[in-house]
């Protein structure tokens, strides 16, 4: 059972510590000695990635965004407190009780999850129960202030009292809509170096020092290159013109600087024959607020739009002016997507990432 306040839980093997990503998803567990006991990665909408190296059987049912997954017989449903969520359907199985933001078209579908932007947001409560209460109380005050208002002989004091009641009711309803936050931006990570269990050597196989800043609102991204390339980046900064043209997200005739949020993908890439034994991985820890200022395009799944985009990129006929594009990688032999990539295309974006290089390894 997990104690969310401590990020730990008790299992048959003793106390287990939960390590989470920026969404609060449990990506690894360690024992009290800090030894890695299990790990898991997730697809954008919560499906489990299958290409995680061992030990890969997560020793807890608190997985994606830290919510509890029901027994296998329940079709993978997850308990989001107010509602159940299906990472396979990418939707809640019940509608939200309110439309959180009528001005946002993404919230009009009351079954949708996290404004259909699950990389940036998560939904810890399923909705905002207190807001429903506020709306009901507000409605009572409004009704109280307007009922029998046709009576001609109301005193000035009575009229003022009713007006106050209406104003209070309206204020409560407005407050309910303004404070309700069924969707929260996933910007914190829960690694806590102070407790010792963020020691990078304890978290995942290999050596990397992810999440060195415990409370910052950052995204950690990795770039695989060779040692000469890494030295050039560390010395001169990122050069977005140095890559290859005709890659997945590249505008026609342009190259990009590719990163991933998956350390294992980056490490496999760095150790591929491509780098002839000289591969290395650079780590960037970039504030989310800074990334949000860039003009970006995010594909949360390898859908039809992604396919068209990538094939155009590969074919050298893609046109866009994004600072960055993020989404799955193309497996060219099958035309399907895998893993994750985050590509920079403008000097503006490169300059930002230059400021947040943590180290090379």
């Amino acid at each position, binding site marked *: 059972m997990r104690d969310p306040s401590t990020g730990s839980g008790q299992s048959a093997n003793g106390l287990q510590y939960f390590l989470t990503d920026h969404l609060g998803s449990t990506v690894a567990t360690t024992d009290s000695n800090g030894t890695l006991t299990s790990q898991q990665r997730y697809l954008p909408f919560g499906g489990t990635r299958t290409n995680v190296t061992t030990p890969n059987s997560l020793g807890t049912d608190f997985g994606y965004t830290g919510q509890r997954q029901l027994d296998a017989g329940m079709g993978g449903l997850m308990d989001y407190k107010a509602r159940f969520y299906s990472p396979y359907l990418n939707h809640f199985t019940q509608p939200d009780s309110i439309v959180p933001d009528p001005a946002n078209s993404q919230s009009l579908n009351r079954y949708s999850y996290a404004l259909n932007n699950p990389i940036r947001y998560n939904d810890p409560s399923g909705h905002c129960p207190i807001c429903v209460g506020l709306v009901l109380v507000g409605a009572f005050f409004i009704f109280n202030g307007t009922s029998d208002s046709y009576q001609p002989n109301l005193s000035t004091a009575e009229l003022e009292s009713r007006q106050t009641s209406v104003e209070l009711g309206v204020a409560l309803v407005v407050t309910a809509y303004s404070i309700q936050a069924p969707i929260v931006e996933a910007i914190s990570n829960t690694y806590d170096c102070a407790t010792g269990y963020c020691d990078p050597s304890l978290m995942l196989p290999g050596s990397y020092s992810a999440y060195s800043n415990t409370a910052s609102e950052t995204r950690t991204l990795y770039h695989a290159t060779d040692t000469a390339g890494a030295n050039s980046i560390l010395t001169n900064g990122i050069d977005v013109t140095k890559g290859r043209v005709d890659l997945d997200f590249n505008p026609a005739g342009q190259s990009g600087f590719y990163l991933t949020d998956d350390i294992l993908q980056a490490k496999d890439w760095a150790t591929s*024959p491509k780098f002839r034994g000289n591969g290395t991985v650079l780590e960037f820890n970039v504030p989310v607020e800074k990334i949000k200022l860039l003009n970006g395009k995010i594909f949360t799944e390898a859908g039809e739009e992604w396919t068209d985009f990538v094939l155009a990129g590969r074919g050298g006929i893609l046109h866009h002016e994004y600072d960055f594009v993020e989404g799955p990688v193309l497996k060219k032999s099958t035309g399907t997507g895998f893993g994750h990539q985050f590509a920079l295309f403008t000097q503006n974006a490169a300059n930002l990432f230059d400021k947040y290089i943590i180290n090379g390894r």
Partner: protein
Amino acid sequence: MKTMNDILGVFCQEIVECLVKYGSLDESVAKEMVSGSKICEVNSEMQENLLFHETPYYWAMTLLYPDNPYWYQDSKLWPPPKEYLDK
């Protein structure tokens, strides 16, 4: 139905053919270069994905120009010849 090993075999043979055609190597030398590079030794799904993320032509050029990691900036080498793309 083709197994992954079948697909891998065809893919790696295409790398050899690219080395022969565009690198003017003997087939035996090309085969030795591919096997020595371990490009086709795939031990995980991720390695398989990364291998198939590229074309055989890309891997052949990577083997042909080991001392030039930025070979693809040479317009004579990249993009691949039209006859290869049209294949």
